[in-house]
C-alpha cells in the first residue's frame, strides 16, 4: 500500500484535479519460471478541471493499469499521485452485483457515496433519462444486454457528480444514439468543470479530446489537440489536496 498521504490546508485551490508524476509499476510474480512485467516507467500526466483527456496506446500497453492507479484501486511502485476532489471510476468490466436490479444498484452505490435518498433518486432519474435505459430499472444486472450494463457501469461512476471522471473504454457495446448521447454528456460535464480521462481505441475520436496521452513502452507522450506541441511532462500543479507516493 502507499506509504504516505498528505492533505493540503483547506482552501488551497488548483485547476489540477489529478496529477501523476513519474509513476512506475511492475507486476512481480513469486511463482517460479514467470517473469516480472514492467508496465509503467516514469509515466507523468496532468488533468485539469474541464479537460477532456484521451489515453491511447496499443493493447497491453498499460492503459487500464494506469487508470486503476489514478483511481486508487491499484498501488504503484514509485512516483507521486496528487488528487484534488472526488473521483468517479468506470472500469472496463462492470464491477456490479449481478443479482441486483438497476434501481437497487443505484441505491447501493448512492449510499456508498453517502448521498441522501433524494440525491440518489434525482441522480438515477437524470442518468436513466440521459442514457435512455429507464425501462430496464427493475431488471437484474445479469439480465441486461452488454450495452445497458455498460450504461449502468457508467452511471455508477457519474451519479455523485465527481470532480474527475476516469472512464476505461466506457462506450463498449453502445449503439450509435447512446454513443452520441455519451459524448454530449461528456462535453456538458467538461463545460461544468469536470476533468475527464477516457481510455479510447477509436482513432477518429481524437478531435473530441483537448489533450491526448499516448502510452508507449511505459511512458506517456502528451499531445495538445490542435497544436503541434509534444511534451512528455506537463507543467507542475500547485497546492495539491491529497498526495500519495509509491512504496519503493
Amino acid at each position, binding site marked *: *500500500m*502507499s506509504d504516505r*498521504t498528505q492533505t493540503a490546508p483547506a482552501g488551497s485551490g488548483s485547476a489540477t484535479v489529478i496529477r501523476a508524476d513519474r509513476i512506475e509499476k511492475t507486476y512481480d510474480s513469486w511463482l517460479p519460471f514467470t517473469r516480472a512485467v514492467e508496465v509503467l516507467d516514469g509515466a507523468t500526466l496532468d488533468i485539469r478541471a474541464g479537460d477532456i483527456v484521451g489515453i491511447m496506446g496499443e493493447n497491453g500497453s498499460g492503459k487500464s493499469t494506469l487508470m486503476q*492507479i489514478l*483511481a*486508487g*484501486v*491499484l*498501488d504503484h511502485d514509485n512516483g507521486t*499521485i496528487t*488528487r484534488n*476532489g*472526488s*473521483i*468517479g*471510476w468506470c*472500469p472496463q*468490466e462492470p*464491477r*456490479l*452485483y*449481478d*443479482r*441486483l436490479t438497476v434501481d*437497487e444498484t443505484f*441505491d*447501493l*452505490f448512492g*449510499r*456508498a*457515496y*453517502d*448521498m441522501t435518498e433524494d*440525491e440518489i433518486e434525482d441522480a438515477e432519474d437524470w442518468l436513466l433519462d440521459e442514457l435512455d435505459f429507464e425501462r430496464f430499472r427493475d431488471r*437484474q444486472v445479469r439480465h441486461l444486454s452488454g450495452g445497458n450494463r455498460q450504461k449502468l457501469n457508467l452511471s*455508477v461512476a457519474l451519479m*455523485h*457528480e*465527481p*470532480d*474527475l471522471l476516469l472512464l476505461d473504454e466506457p462506450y463498449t457495446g453502445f449503439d450509435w444514439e447512446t454513443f452520441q448521447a455519451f459524448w454530449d454528456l461528456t462535453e456538458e460535464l467538461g463545460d461544468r468543470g469536470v476533468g475527464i480521462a477516457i481510455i479510447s481505441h477509436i482513432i477518429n475520436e481524437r478531435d473530441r479530446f483537448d489533450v491526448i496521452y499516448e502510452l508507449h513502452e511505459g511512458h506517456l507522450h502528451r499531445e495538445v489537440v490542435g497544436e503541434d506541441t509534444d511534451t512528455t511532462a506537463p507543467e507542475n500543479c500547485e497546492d495539491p489536496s*491529497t498526495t*500519495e507516493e509509491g512504496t519503493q
Partner: protein
Amino acid sequence: MTRTRQTVAGVRASARSFFRKPFNIVLLVVLPALSIQLYGISLAQFPKFEFFTTAASLATTGRITGAVFATGALAGVLGLFQIISARDADRRLSICGIPPRDLLISRFATLVGISVIIAAVSTGTLVVLLPDSVGAPVFAFVGLVLGSIIYAMLGILVGSVLPRELEGSLVLVILADMDNVLASGIFQIDQRITRFSPLSYPHDIVTQAVVDGTFAGEKVLPALSFVAVFGVLAVVTYSWTVEPVATGGEAA
C-alpha cells in the same frame, strides 16, 4: 448514521444476491438430506467392531456425522461463493466510500444469517430422518449453528486467499471431510489430535443433544475459539484484498 446506512445496504445486497440464486436454495434443501441419509445408510452397513466407540448406534452416529458435515461444508462453500462472486463489486464499493471493515460486517451478518438457516434445515432434516427421537433438538441446533459459523468464516478465509470457485470449494470440502472423520468419534483417535478438529466440538454438542438430551456446555468455548481465530484471519485477509489505495467517492 452513514455507517449504519451503508452496512444495512451491504447486508441487503448480499442477502438478495444469495437468495436470488436458485442453486443456493437447492443446495440448502438437498445437501443436508442427502448427506444425512448417505452417512446413516453407509455406517449402518458396518458390523459393530470393538474399535467403534460411538455413543449411539452406527446408523444414528452416521446421520449425526452427515448433518455436521453437510452443515459445515455447505456454510463453507456458500461463504466462499459469497466472497468470490462479490469480490470485484466489493472493491468498487470500497473505492466509492464504504470502508472494507463495513463491507466485511455486512458479509459476516449475511453469512451468520445463512448459517442459522443451514443449521435449522439440517436440524429439521435430522429430526425427520433419525430412526430414534432427538433428545433435545434445540441443543442440536445450537451445535450445528456453531459448526456452520466456523465453516462460514473458513469459507471467507479461503475465498480471500484462493479466489477461485472450483479450487476453493475443493479445499473446503476436503477439509470438512477430513475434519468430520476426526470429529465423528467413530475411530479412537488421540485427543491431542482431535482437539484441533474444528468440527469435533459442534459434533459432540449435537451427539449429546441427540442421545442424552443434554447440553455439552463445555464444548461451546472451544468452538467459539475457532470462530474467533478464523474470523480474525478472515478479517485480515479480506481487508487486505479489498482495501483501496485511495477513495474517491466523496460526494460533490
